[in-house]
């Protein structure tokens, strides 16, 4: 099955770059936790700010982990190494290749999120992370893996991947419920930002961690993004004239 082949390829990459991947997944989130959560000690809604911050940082780590695992890799494979040609000419169904990229990217995102959870364990915040939290981390990873696929198909040079990170991922990291609630934003802007996938993931992981019901609408929104980006990726790989 083609999906297993892609997962094998991702595993080879992970095994080889294990330390680099792990350190890269840790550095920014750890800095945010230290500076905003522990350095500038404050409260939010009567709770230590760290309780607000950790779920947002976990969601953000899954986003950046998944996105970078796919965007960088696919752009280099398509434009620089031309290794995608090997896949294109093979009998592996291309939808399976796409699905393998989505799952593989999402697993990398989950790994990044799990590393953050493990790092924050000694703080003993009492926050709850259960199977639903991990499902959300996975779902968030699939959304950003597919977004990375779409953008890598649109890339014209391999320098585009870091640009997309600056234009899309970094603004989302700061605006989407990670460091402060979208409720504090002006009307109109609040609704737009609130509809973004990271806002939904952060909100729901935070609700679960506080023992509250996250509701279902967030899952629907994430699945909607997933369906749209997957559709575009599959269209690109089958129909784009010049890959």
């Amino acid at each position, binding site marked *: 099955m083609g999906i297993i082949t892609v997962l094998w390829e991702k595993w080879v990459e992970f095994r080889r770059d294990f330390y680099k991947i792990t350190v890269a997944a840790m550095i920014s989130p750890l800095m945010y936790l230290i500076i905003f959560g522990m350095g500038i000690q404050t409260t939010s809604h009567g709770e230590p700010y760290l309780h607000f911050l950790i779920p947002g940082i976990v969601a953000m780590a899954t986003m950046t982990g998944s996105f970078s695992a796919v965007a960088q890799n696919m752009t280099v494979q398509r434009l620089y190494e031309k290794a*995608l040609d090997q896949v294109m*000419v093979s*009998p592996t169904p291309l939808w399976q290749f796409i699905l393998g990229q989505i799952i593989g990217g999402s697993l990398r995102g989950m790994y990044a999120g799990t590393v953050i959870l493990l790092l924050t364990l000694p703080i003993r915040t009492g926050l709850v992370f259960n199977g639903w939290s991990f499902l959300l981390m996975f779902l968030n990873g699939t959304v950003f893996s597919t977004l990375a696929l779409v953008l890598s198909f649109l890339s014209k040079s391999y320098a585009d991947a870091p640009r997309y990170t600056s234009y899309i991922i970094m603004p989302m990291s700061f605006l989407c419920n990670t460091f402060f609630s979208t409720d504090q934003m002006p009307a109109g802007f609040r609704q737009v930002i609130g509809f973004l996938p990271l806002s939904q993931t952060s909100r729901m992981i935070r609700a679960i961690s506080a023992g509250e019901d996250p509701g279902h609408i967030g899952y629907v929104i994430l699945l909607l993004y997933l369906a749209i980006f997957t559709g575009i990726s599959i269209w690109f790989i089958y129909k784009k004239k010049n890959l």
Partner: protein
Amino acid sequence: MIEIKNLTKKFGDFTAVDHLNLTIGTGEFFGLLGPNGAGKTTTISMLSTVLLPTEGEILIDGTRLDRKASAQKRKLSVITQEYSMRQDMTMDEVMEYQGRLYFMPKKEIRRKTEELLDFAGLLEYRYRTVRHLSGGMKRKLMICRALMIEPEIMLLDEPTAGMDALSRRQMWNLLRQLNVRQMTIVLTTHYMEEAEALCDRVALVSRGKLGSLDTPANLIADLGAYAVDEVIDDNTRSRYFKDRDEAIRYLSAAGGQASMRSTTLEDVFVEHVGQRLTRK
């Protein structure tokens, strides 16, 4: 059998391949020759489905080739001009990835990897990453990777580019062996002696259009099997003759600044491309 019907590829206003029509028989060794920018690599890229045609179609054994055609793609293997493989994988991993993409059993992947890397003299470097290989080793690895799946059709885009004379000859022998086993081979090359030595038929293309198409021997015979080179104003000009006596008469009349030789495929190529460029 490969049938290329009305194949056209445009990039904006530029037409890289212009209504190309070709039929390549099973087991044929076919050469696609042309100058830089003639559309050879674009044609190979369409045969490997990396590029989709603007117009026209490609049929493999009567069935249209597209990105969904897994059964047709199963028959194809491509050696591209560039080293199209993961630079951070070891040789072993490159071979395993190829085997997995073609759904080969793991045991078979291991056996074929050892056999092919040994055959290419690469076995002792099997755990070295592609990034750390020389150009020649990368080229050999690409050949091993293409042969991993025992294809029916092999597409080779400038396979000997950058190879030394010895390696090139080894490659020729390998390609001949494969062709003897009824493998269809489509080769693009700049080296005319390579096409002349290997190909059953060659197509001369320039500016995306098909010019002449025939066996190397027939193309040479059509131009004239005897060439007389004359040096006029520090430029060498060649004239071609079908009749040997006529060539000798011309040589005698030309004086000391002329010499006679057999016409080669390179002469056919230069004449063909020169005429097309002049017409433009």
